[in-house]
């Protein structure tokens, strides 16, 4: 590598100053030996020469430092030029830097989740929009982010599903969420429909929570500051569950409760790496409405994953299960029939019901997966209406942002004449925009 001329000049100046310094040192040495014979004037002259030379040495050192810095910069530049492309010019031409008009807009995505189904319990054929979901999110300031999802479907029309604020920089590993959102119940109850590994939500979850666990309230999540993963969520809500809220609204509930009528939730979860490729996740859920023990729900969720990270046909397995036990008191519910008048009698009654599912999904290659699911569901009030569903499903990903899934369900219902049957559903899902699965839907 050749130095530029400017640097040769600097080097020359450095050498010149060093020679002067050596000369001054030699003169000083001579002067020190001849002190007795030299006059005071001569001594003063030599001292002045020494000071001047020392001053020049200081300046030269500064120049040397500057030269060294310039040399490092040039070496960096040479490295950059050497490592740069010989085929593509990627450096932008100098131009005014104008912020794009969309610079402050949030990340936006849209999911189209559509299905075609048929079966003998609900005879006929049906196309449906399972979900058309607009999701937006963005940081609000250094301390807060916000997100919202607006969802439309054939069954439920269009509405604001979530609109929430989430802190990003609280101390002690705390995160606070507030607004309307899916409360942190179990594993899948708070997933959006299109995030499920099945074409539909398990019937047990559907009945227990009325679909997704939409809630209005506030949640605090704490991540234990240790090497082992332990995460605990505590929440306080008006109510948990989509249909619960809707029923309350339909009944003319005005949204004011006593403190004891709010719903409390605790959800601890932990995780174990059983080996490099096998891991286990375990969680527990408890929520309650304190007022007269209106509702107590306990749940447990377990997920075992094998993630070998290979490129062969078999690429992994997920086995998961959730089970919930619900004890809930219902007021103004039909408890019998008046023997005289035949009119229904209404009163207060507590129901103890449970339900859950288990599934296994194997991943084959980069594009395919197959799985089975078993589900047991009871109504949370009234006749138990037990339903057992055995499902098989297969998924094909033509690309990362498109999914086709076929699922067959064999359904057995107790206490319903002709309650056994089947359903076949073909689901087609596409993801537009900045869609990324969050950590909770891993």
């Amino acid at each position, binding site marked *: 590598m050749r130095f530029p001329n400017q640097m040769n000049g600097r080097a020359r100046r450095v050498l010149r100053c060093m020679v002067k310094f050596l000369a001054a040192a030699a003169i000083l040495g001579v002067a020190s030996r001849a002190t007795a014979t030299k006059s005071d004037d001569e001594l003063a002259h030599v001292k002045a020469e020494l000071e001047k030379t020392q001053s020049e040495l200081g300046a030269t050192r500064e120049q040397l430092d500057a030269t060294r810095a310039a040399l490092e910069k040039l070496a960096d530049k040479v490295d950059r030029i050497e490592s740069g*492309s010989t085929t593509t010019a990627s450096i932008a031409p100098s131009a005014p830097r104008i912020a794009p008009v969309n610079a402050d807009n949030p990340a936006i995505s849209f999911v189209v989740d559509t299905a075609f189904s048929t079966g003998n319990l609900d005879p006929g054929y049906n196309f449906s929009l399972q979900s058309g979901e607009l999701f937006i999110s963005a940081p609000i300031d250094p301390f807060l982010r916000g997100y919202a999802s607006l969802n439309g479907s054939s069954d439920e029309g269009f509405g604001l599903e979530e609109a929430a604020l989430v802190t990003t920089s609280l101390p002690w590993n705390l995160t606070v969420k507030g607004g309307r959102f899916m409360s942190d119940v179990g594993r899948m109850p708070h997933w959006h429909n299109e995030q499920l590994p099945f074409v539909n939500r398990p019937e047990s979850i559907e009945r227990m929570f009325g679909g997704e666990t939409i809630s209005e309230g506030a949640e605090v999540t704490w991540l234990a500051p240790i090497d082992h993963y332990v995460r605990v969520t505590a929440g306080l809500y008006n109510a948990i569950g989509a249909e619960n809220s809707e029923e309350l609204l339909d009944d003319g509930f005005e949204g004011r409760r006593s403190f004891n009528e709010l719903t409390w939730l*605790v959800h601890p979860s932990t995780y174990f790496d059983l080996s490099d490729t096998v891991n286990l996740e375990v969680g527990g859920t408890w929520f309650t409405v304190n007022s007269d023990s209106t509702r107590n729900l306990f749940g447990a969720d377990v997920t075992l994953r094998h993630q070998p990270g*290979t490129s062969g046909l078999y690429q992994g397995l997920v086995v998961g299960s959730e089970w919930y036990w619900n004890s809930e008191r219902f007021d103004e519910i039909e408890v019998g029939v008046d023997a005289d008048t035949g009119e229904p009698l209404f009163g207060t009654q507590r129901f103890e019901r449970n339900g859950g599912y288990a599934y296994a999904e194997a991943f084959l290659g980069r594009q395919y997966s197959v799985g089975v699911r078993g589900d047991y569901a009871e109504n949370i009030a009234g006749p138990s209406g037990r339903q057992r569903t055995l499902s098989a499903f297969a998924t094909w990903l033509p690309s990362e942002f498109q999914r086709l899934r076929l699922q067959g369900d064999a359904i057995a219902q107790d206490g319903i004449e002709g309650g056994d049957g089947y359903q076949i559903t073909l689901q087609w899902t596409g993801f537009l925009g900045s869609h990324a699965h969050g950590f909770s839907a891993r």
Partner: protein
Amino acid sequence: MAFPLVSLVFAIGVMLFGVAQPAAAVLRVVASTPDVADMTRQIGGDRVEVVTLAAGSQDPHKVPMKPSFVTKLNRADALVVNGLGLEHAFLPPLLEVASNPKILPTGPGYIDASVLIQPLEIPTSQNRSQGELHPLGSPHFNLDPVRGKQMAKAIADGLARVDPEGAADYRSGLERFNGVLDAKIAEWAQLAAPLRGVKAVSYHQDLVYLADRYGFGMVDTIETKPGVPATPSHLEALIDTMKRERVQLVIREIAYEMPLAQTVAARTGAQVATISSMAGGLPGTTGYIDSVEANLKALVAALHAAASE
């Protein structure tokens, strides 16, 4: 009802706090990929304790989001990333729940190894009909060892910024690493000389920097578009193109399946070379330098096999 559950949670917490061990190293560093992890260890020496998220044999676009990663990120003083969006599929969601503002991209502990890289393959338009494009340019510059020096420089600068007291150590660590790498780069220039002018296809579009360094030409990919699996019509067109262009190498990244690469190679007379797009992916490799060497040796061996047929 509430009391037993709270007690259980408390007991678990006490148990886990009890078994937690204090770290001896000065700086807890999480590295997103094995490449930047190895560079950080080489540069930081005893001043750093490095844990890695992705494994070398994994597809960097499909790294699983394990909860154990969250705790590592939560406790990290610094996060070293490859950058240019390589980690987009797994790192942002993990950072969202890791409760550690200092290692967010805007935080002081975020060390981006791509800051000195001049990106190639910057898309001229952002449209998923063209596949899954990296908007900032290809992030696979780690495969080129000369650009590896720039990664190492960016990491050393970042470590010195996070831990100013160790700046001199990081500078000398960088000099040591560069000394070894420079010698290898000179050696590899001889090793890889036969690759100059050779035509190749890869499974995924990730070899632009490596091809640029050693002068071989990338004709097409087995994937239809970046991140979009091969379709039958694309494969037929690819095979026609390979025959016409006399392509000698089918470069299969180890995270992608072998059978399709072998089928394409068999129908065109090309040879399959298996490389790893991240360090430690090939058997017998662990660090950045031996991984680069293993990749180049695999390419040259496949080329010799193609020439001998």
